[in-house]
């Protein structure tokens, strides 16, 4: 593999100028989904119009690292009482935990289900239960890393649900079943340890 240096030359197709000579320079380049920006990355710049037209292979690790850091929304429309379930669960783990802990609780369950630590064969059934049938008037929105986004897709597939929205609802209902309803919540010691890491 040829290592490109700043100031080296090459050729590439520019969207305005066609096939043109390019010069490699350090540039800031955004991602097309507007999720972020790669700063100071070596890129091929059109000699005629100065547009960024390429990135060499050697820039891929830097791009990958920045892309993994970008956050993407994972959302679900839920009945209003689903948010109450999350607040009740957080308060049961530790009284002073606010609603902010809900996000960590959902991600804890997501990762637990994916790793096999939390078993939930009935998650699909929970979505058809009486407690789930109410107008979806509120929204749960989590900004997550690309890795966590991938984990959502894996768990959706693993438990046989349709999408992330169904999975978030299923997890909240599982939290109700495991933490809110029982006198002795499931994995209580572990959840308290998680809460202590939260501050």
């Amino acid at each position: 593999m040829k290592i490109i240096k700043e100031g080296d030359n090459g050729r590439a197709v520019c969207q305005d100028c066609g096939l043109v000579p390019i010069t490699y320079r350090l540039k800031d380049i955004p991602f097309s989904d507007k999720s972020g920006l790669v700063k100071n990355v070596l890129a091929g710049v059109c000699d005629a119009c100065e547009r960024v037209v390429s990135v060499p292979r050697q820039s891929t690790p830097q791009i990958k690292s920045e892309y993994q850091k970008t956050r993407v929304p994972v959302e679900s429309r839920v009945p209003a009482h689903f948010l109450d379930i999350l607040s009740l669960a957080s308060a049961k783990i530790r009284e002073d935990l606010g609603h902010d802990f809900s996000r960590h609780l959902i991600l804890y369950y997501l990762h637990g289900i994916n790793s096999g630590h939390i078993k939930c064969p009935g998650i699909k059934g929970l979505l058809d239960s009486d407690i789930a049938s109410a107008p979806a008037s509120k929204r749960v929105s989590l900004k997550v890393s690309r890795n966590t986004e991938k984990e959502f897709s894996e768990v959706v597939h693993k438990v046989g649900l349709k999408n992330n929205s169904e999975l978030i609802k299923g997890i909240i209902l599982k939290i109700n079943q495991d933490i809110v309803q029982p006198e002795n919540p499931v994995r209580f010691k572990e959840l308290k340890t998680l809460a202590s890491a939260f501050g």
Partner: protein
Amino acid sequence: MGFKDAKEGALRCLRSGDYAHAVRDEIDVKNLLACGLVTEEDVIALINRTKGNQHEERPHDNDRSVTVHIFKPQHKGVTWYIKFYFVEPGVMFISVHP
């Protein structure tokens, strides 16, 4: 350049690391190889499994003297799109995505 030469050329460039990614002011997140979401080995495997009837070539929209190759292999029931053109010294990937 026909299918066989395009396939061999792309594989050779991927193995030697002589390739780059097309950018239009922004890094196209549909280029999963550029974003590091698939590896060189993944793309080599996809190109290797591409058959002649899963290949198209057409002039580049921004310079008709440049031929763009489109490989459309099937993997696990999903069609992948691998779009690239040759420019010295290697290959320029436009997109790599299912």
